[in-house]
């Protein structure tokens, strides 16, 4: 790797010029901003309260998520049983004539045998996980050729109809982006009410895990789109033109929100 030095104006000099513009001589020791001074205990109690609030309205949140996601361009399917969910995924793949699919390694796929069902149908399904056979480059080629990308969801936000994916080991950034169709499987325990809920959970994780946010977090809300020519809407520019949200409606035994 090349040099890891700061180029341009040295930090201290730059900050001094900012300070001068602010008419101050020194950095304030700690600005009066409560959120940044909160300890882990505060975040934990806020999270507990949020979970309780959401659990009390679990059914409503699932309805809201389904309705809002639909409005934002997701094709929503609420599965009453695991078999239904698998059948639905197979039907989607069939109707689109998919031959190659890629999927993330979200553990929802351990509980839901879509992989096997699609293979039985004759599709090539590749989990995007590096191992001895599959280098980063090979996986990237596989993703580029796939007609369907399947992921789980780390969170789904009822307020906005968004699916949140946190890429890391086994969870490629590109599976939900490069294939023309994205299918996300959402479990009820991943559903939160608001954007604030997701951000609170990420802050908690951040401080719990010694200050690592993970490299990436995506809020995905509907298909890729543009209106850059004459403000006319076109879906499917650089990302998927079609997005499916499969909500595992039956699985309400576990509490909502990131308990998994």
């Amino acid at each position, binding site marked *: 790797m090349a040099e890891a030095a700061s180029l341009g104006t040295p930090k201290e000099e*730059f900050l001094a010029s900012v*300070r001068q513009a602010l008419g101050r001589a020194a950095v304030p020791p700690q600005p009066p*901003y409560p959120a940044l001074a909160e300890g882990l205990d505060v975040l934990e109690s806020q999270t507990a309260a949020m979970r309780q609030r959401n659990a009390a309205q679990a059914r409503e949140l699932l309805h809201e998520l389904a309705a809002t996601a639909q409005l934002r361009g997701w094709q929503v399917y609420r599965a009453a049983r695991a078999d239904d969910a698998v059948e639905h995924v197979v039907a989607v793949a069939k109707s689109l004539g998919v031959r190659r699919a890629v999927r993330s390694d979200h553990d929802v796929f351990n509980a839901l045998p879509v992989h096997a069902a699609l293979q039985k149908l004759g599709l090539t399904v590749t989990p995007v996980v590096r191992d001895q056979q599959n280098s980063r480059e090979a996986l990237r080629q596989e993703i580029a050729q796939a007609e369907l990308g399947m992921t789980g969801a780390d969170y789904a936000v009822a307020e906005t109809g968004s699916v949140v994916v946190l890429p890391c080991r086994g969870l490629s950034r590109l599976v939900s982006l490069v294939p023309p169709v994205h299918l996300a499987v959402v479990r009820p325990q991943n559903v939160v009410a608001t954007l604030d809920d997701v951000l609170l959970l990420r802050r908690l994780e951040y401080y719990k895990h010694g200050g690592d946010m993970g490299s990436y977090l995506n809020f995905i809300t509907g298909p890729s*789109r543009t209106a*850059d020519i004459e403000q006319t809407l076109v879906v499917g*520019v*650089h990302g998927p033109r079609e997005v499916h949200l499969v909500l595992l409606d039956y699985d309400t035994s576990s509490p909502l929100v990131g308990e998994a």
Partner: protein
Amino acid sequence: MAEIKTKDFQAASRRSIQDPQLRRALQRVGAGFDGARRENIAEVTPQVWEAWREQARRIKVHTLEHLDYYLELLDQRVTQAGGQMHYAKDAAQANAIVAQLARSRGVRIATKSKSMVSEELGLNHVLEEAGVEVYETDLGEYIIQLAGETPSHLVAPALHKTKEQVAQLLSQKLGVPLTDDIETMAAVARNALREKFLQSDLGISGANFLVAETGTLVIFTNEGNGRLCTSAPRMHIGITGMEKVIPSLQDLAVFMRLLPRSATGQRLTSYVTLVTGPRRADDEDGPEEFHLVIVDNGRSRLLADPELREALYCIRCGACLNICPVYQKVGGHAYGWVYPGPIGAVITPVLVGLGQAKDLPFASSLCGACREACPIKINLPRMLLHLRHKLAESPNADEKSSSPAETAAAHGYAGLMGRPKLLAAARGLGRLAQMPFVRDGKIPHIPLPPLSGWTKTKDLPALPPRSFRDIWDQELSRLPDKQD
């Protein structure tokens, strides 16, 4: 830095106004973006909207007041996440940083997600000189890059182009058949760029927000190009103005609610992407290096002026453009630099130098629609007034916007209007002077500038025989207050 043509506003705005295709394009702005924005406000209710605006403004006020603190925190957290910060005091330095990073890593192809700051810096040009092929990947940016133009709107850079013009351009530059189908045009761009994404060594993005607490860069996009630029190439450089920082991750929620609704009238963009450092050892994909370039380029002048500091609260949604009756007439290019509309009329003169852009702060009727539309409640008319004052009464000849004659006229006006008796005498003279021009109580033509400009298209009322003061003295003051 991008070419500055702000001195040409008078002539450029006259040309724009006569361009029928531009007029059609601009009509869509009000109906499209602004209409959708209003529907959103109605949907969430004006009370909730107002509470969001207040909250967002409080965050911005606080952050800018402690900008040095939050930049320091951001630096610490970006570094902790394995990223590298760089600071640029001006455009030349910012460009040099990116060019040096590109050169030292042997970058041959760079793909860019939309960034107004990079437009401000004129970055593409510098990278191309350094031997890097640069591809804009936002559809609107791609179109204007092919056309060799600059953006005409903060969020819809190719808004000034009709679909016929885009079709012509794609056909000329890429050799594809002419089409009138917008979906086909988008597919052409997608196919042309898909290959570049996979070959690209460097992804460049702007930032809508920088979260100090976690060292996170946040971008709002719809097409997916931003996600590709920050995921596919082996290096990612984020480049943005120093004012983009917000303290905590929790602050992001309110901006996620305000920005898309204010910009395109969407509840949320298709993607909101949070990038924190390069890919971790275990990650399946993502860039090996993450750099963040923080740019001043005149922003500390806005920061230092208490009357202008709030211009740095801007989140570049473009709502003030969409509602501005002046922007709706002249479009973005007439403003002569990267930032058009009311926010451009405020920040451009400060960023490029007051003397370069004397007309811009005056190019407003001060109707205040921009302030009403602004999600951060930025008082744009007040800042325009402040700049007018700085220009009109500047001690510096380069900056002074008023001629000695205008200054004398201003003081003469105060001298005359401040003396009721003198004014009455002048009124008598005015009544005599207007006599040859009065037709039926109106003045259809006066051969004397600046009134001659007015009477080109409008009649002017003639001075009637008596002023109100005369009528008061002669009649009204003698009548009893109560008529019954």
